[in-house]
Each structure stands twice: as structure tokens, then as C-alpha cells.
């Protein structure tokens, strides 16, 4: 295999609920190649969000390996994992998670602060990114002054701030109407097709598969059926 891309091996994540152990992920082997647009489908509780958080280094597996760009991120220490989250992946959430007191521009600049990008460069890059997601006229607006679709586009621009090769999206259309959701998916598709970024999107919305290059189905913490178009 190549060093690029994502590969998991016998990935497990258990949660203890009272005296019961829930196997959220029960031995997932998954391979995502550089430039893939992967849709992870499945009903609520199938473990698809858990998988995404593990890939993004927001959570640690109970057992198994997660190889990203040539190394097992399950073995990284806290600081290395934080750097990984900041530089190698970009997150897009269902609830946008924009900072309400910051303008669109400041929200996009925020990840670059932790990556120690100098202010001038930071500002220039944030402006470019907001232009790319079509929000050139909304930079000084706060999240409350933006529509849901606009907020999600700010969040996508923020995910691109440190120029990661991998975008992880957790139900990005979940809080949006169908039309706006389509726009957001179009935007993610462009990032995949035009810039070659790897996209992993988690959704229970079947229409997402139309944009993806691949789809996998999770059920009870296991991958169902074969990979493919």
C-alpha cells in the first residue's frame, strides 16, 4: 500500500454504559485512498460518527490501528495528536460550531492561531478561503447574521485553514434544507475533484452517495458488504 491515504485495521471502540459494554466499532477494516470521496452510511447508532472521530484523532480506539499518511495515529501522544488535528485533517460538523463572538473572517483564522501562522498571512489566507466558498461579502458578519448554509460554508473554509489533505464531515447537511444541503455537498465535491482532497463524509442521507466516489455502510459497528461505486 502507499503511505498516503487512510487505512484502519481491526478498529474497535467500546463504550461502557452502566455495567454494559457497547461495541460502537467492532473490528472495522477500511481503506481510503488519497483523493477518495467516501460516504459512510448507516442508521443512528451504527458507529459511523465514532469512526469519523477516530479518523480525526478526536477520540482514541479501544484496539486496532489507524494509519494516516504513513503512521498510526492511535500511537500519537496528546500534543502530536493535537497537531495532527490542526494540520492534517479539517472537520465540518452538523452544528457548524462557529464561535458566536467572532466574525466569519475570525472564525476562519482561528485554526491558524494554534498553528502559529503570522497574522498578516493568516488574514490573507482567510480572505482567500472565504472567497472560494462564495462569502466574499459576508466576512465581517457574525454567525448569527448568516444563514445556515452560509454558516456551514464558513465552517468549510475554516476546515481548509491549515490546508489539510483530508476533510472529515459529520452530517454536514443535517441542519440544512435540501437545497442548501446540495450546495454544501457541491462545494465539498469541488474540493475533492478540483483540489484532490480526500473527503470522508458521514451521513444517513442517501442522496450523499450521489456525490461520493465510494460508499460504505456501517451496521452495529461493522462494515456491511463490499466497497465500491
Amino acid at each position, binding site marked *: 500500500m502507499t503511505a498516503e491515504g487512510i487505512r484502519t485495521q481491526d478498529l474497535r471502540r467500546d463504550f461502557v454504559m452502566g455495567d454494559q459494554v457497547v461495541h460502537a466499532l467492532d473490528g472495522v477494516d477500511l481503506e481510503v485512498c488519497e483523493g477518495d470521496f467516501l460516504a459512510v452510511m448507516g442508521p443512528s447508532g451504527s458507529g459511523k460518527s465514532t469512526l469519523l472521530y477516530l479518523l480525526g484523532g*478526536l477520540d482514541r480506539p479501544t484496539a486496532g490501528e489507524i494509519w494516516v499518511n504513513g503512521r498510526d495515529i492511535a500511537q500519537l501522544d496528546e*500534543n502530536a495528536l493535537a*497537531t495532527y488535528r*490542526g*494540520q492534517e485533517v479539517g*472537520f465540518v460538523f452538523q452544528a457548524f*460550531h462557529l464561535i458566536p463572538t467572532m466574525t466569519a473572517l475570525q472564525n476562519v483564522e482561528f*485554526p491558524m*492561531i*494554534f498553528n502559529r501562522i503570522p497574522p498578516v498571512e493568516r488574514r490573507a489566507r482567510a480572505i482567500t478561503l472565504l472567497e472560494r466558498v462564495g462569502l466574499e461579502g459576508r466576512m465581517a458578519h457574525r454567525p448569527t447574521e448568516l444563514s445556515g448554509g452560509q454558516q456551514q460554508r464558513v465552517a468549510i473554509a475554516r476546515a481548509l485553514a491549515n490546508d489539510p489533505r483530508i476533510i472529515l464531515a459529520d452530517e454536514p447537511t443535517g441542519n440544512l434544507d435540501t437545497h442548501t444541503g446540495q450546495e454544501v455537498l457541491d462545494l465539498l465535491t469541488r474540493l475533492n475533484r478540483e483540489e484532490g482532497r480526500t473527503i470522508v463524509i458521514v451521513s444517513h442521507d442517501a442522496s450523499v452517495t450521489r456525490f461520493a466516489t465510494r460508499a460504505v455502510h456501517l451496521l452495529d459497528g461493522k462494515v456491511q458488504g463490499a466497497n465500491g461505486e
Partner: protein
Amino acid sequence: MTVRDLLRLVLSNLKRMKARVAMTAIGVIIGTAAVVVLVSLGAGLQRLATESLYGMGGLDELMVRNDSYWGMMEVKANGSAQQQQQNLVLDDVVLDQVRQMEGVIAVTPFLDVTMMGPLKLDRQEGWGQIYGVDMDEFVKVAKLNRGTLELYRGQVVIGAMVPENFIPWEEREESETPPEAPELMGKMLQMMQYTYNEGDMYPTESIVARLEVVGELQQQGYMYDYSIFMPLKEAQRLNQQMNAGLPPEAQSSARKGYAQALVKVQNPNQAPVVEQQIKDMGFTVQSDRQELESINQFFLIVQAILGGIGAVALLVAAFGIANTMVMAIYERTREIGLMKAIGATNQDVMSVFLAEAGSIGFLGGIGGVLLAIGVNAVINVVGQPLISQGGAGFMGPGMAGQEAAQTLTATPLWLPVFAILFATLIGVVSGIYPAIRAAALSPIHALKYE
């Protein structure tokens, strides 16, 4: 994240919880102000006490005493127990030795003149201890206010407060305003001797000597202010005259050397060394420095207690800061999760919360110092009459002569700086627990927190 970005982030976070930051900071303001005001008050009282007693210097002077001088005869009767002390004599030989010590610039005996009655200015009785001094040395220690230090036979120079002792008793008791002391310069003081013969109602008065006041010293400490000085030879002659009628063993000529002598050093820093050397010779040394040290020691304790009381208020405020920061964590849980998701390390999260808590402490510290300046001003206005009137009573007579330019509080320059730093530190310390809690949040749980 850089310090600049951290401060900018902290500032915007504080801005959005303005009301709570303000209320939390008020606690710090009160605590800081309490510390500053109380310590200033302690320092002010210390200054009042020390300046009124030692304001005129004297830290370069040592009073050497021979404790066995007066007790000579008793020691003899008691036998050998104090044999060694018995031989101790403070005479010119010893004084010459002292004169050779490094830093010593003047040495003069203070010979007590035996007095058997008061001094009289015309009909008015007064008093003042007369000392015989080595005039060649005395000119190096005495600060002349007016007149001359060149004394001929029958002439004396008086301490600054001696005229006060010639105010009639009736005037002292009755008048509201302090009575004016009579002018002694150029006047003759009669040195009286009262002798009581058997069966007499009143003593027989006789004039022992007439002393012309030709000089007056500046106010320069208790040792000088209530004393009258004359040349050593004159004093010895007077003593012989006074002793003529006494039994031989009671005569002061039976005693060897002097009871006490004054030593002046060039620099107050040299005083402790000289003091120790003289002590090693077996004499007692009394200096203002020792008393000043014990007074300073006392006020250090006073200030520590007062500061401690203020610190209690600051301690309460610290819990206020901790509470505010814990509340902020609950409010911003999802934000903390997001920060972690976009690359913030645990240290980044911690430093944000520590800096926010420290900033509340810092703001409160600045506010507290400003408040303290105001409160101190009020205390000084309200307390001014206390110093200028009542103060003279309990602070000692030295103050009465001074202009009342004093204030009740004294704020050393380090105090406000220290107070602000301390308040900031208190803030940071109270932020430790919330900051650790924030940093320990699991990012996914934080992001899903409702």
C-alpha cells in the same frame, strides 16, 4: 499559539461576560484595596512613630554606659561575685581606645553634674540635667541652633526643649493653647541647693552657681533636647563643690571615670561594629538604632497582621474567580471541544483559562489600587486632626515641635506594584483548577455538550 493571540482571545472572551467579570473583579478590588489601605496605614503609623522619635537622626551615635559606675560600692559589699565588673572603669584611657576604632569621629564623656535643687530663671523654677562634656569633641556632635559653642567659665549651652521646662505649672494646666516657653538665651540660670535643717518647714535655699545661657542646640534627640551642657572641667569643679558637705564614700570623686560617654561614628553603617567592640570591652551600649530596630520589628508584625486581614478578603475573591471560570467552562464547553478539534493542545486550552482568570485578578488589582488611593486620601483628610492634636500626646513630645506635614497613611512605592502582581497571581492560581478541568475535557463529549 502566541502570547499576542492569547491576549486577544482572552480579551474577547472577557468582553462577552462583561457583567460577570465586573462582579468577580469587584471582589478582587475590595480585597486588593483592603491590603493596600491596611498596609499603608501600618506603614504610616510606623513612619509617625519613628520620625517623631528619631526624625532628627542619631543613628550614628552610641551612648556608652558603665553599669558598675553607680553600683561600685554595693559590688564591693557583695564580694567577689561581680569582681570583674568592679574593675571596669570608663575613663579617658578607655575613651582614647574607642577614639582609635575605625569610623569613630567623636568621643566625649557625659559627666552628670550632681544637683541638689532646681534651676531658677528669676523666680521661675525649671529643670534640666547638666552634663559636663569635652567641648572639643562636643562641637562635632552638637548642632547649634543659635548662639555659640565657645564656652567660657560659667557659660552653658542648652538643648532645644529646655525652655519648655521653665513654663509655670499654672499656665500649663489652665490655658487651652500651649503656653509659650520663656526665652533663655542670654539669661542667667541660678543653680539652687536646697538643704533641709531639722525642724524647718521650708528648705534653706542657696545659690550654688550662676550659669549664663549663650547657646541653644537644634532639636536633635531626647539625649540632647532636655539637657544643659558645660565644659568638663567646670562640671568637675561644680561636683567637688556640691560634694564638699557629703560623707566621703558618697562623693562622686570616690568613683572612677565616667558613668557614660557619647560616641559618634562617621556613617550609621559603622555603628554596629563599633557597638560590638565596645560591648566586648564590657560596657553597655545604648543606641537609637536598637530602639528603631525593635520599633520596626513591631510594625513589621503590625503590617503583616493588617495585610493578612486584607488578604482574607482577597482569598474570598479568589473563590469568586474560580467560580466564574468554572461557570465559563460550562458555557463554553462546545467551544473548548472545537478548539481541540482544530488543533489546540491541552496547554493552549489551559493557558486561555489561566490567562482569563489572571486577567480578572489583574483588572481587580488595578481597580483595587485606585480605590485604595482614594480611601487613603479620605483617611488622611479625616485623620489629619488626630495626628496634629492627639498625636503629640501619645507619640511623644518630639512631635509637638514639628510641622504637621504628616499623613496617617504611607504607601511605599513597591506596595501598589506588589498588590497588582499579587492580585494577578491570585487570579492565575484560582484559574488552575478550572483550567485543568477545561483541558481535560474529551473533545467529542465537549462538542456534543448541550
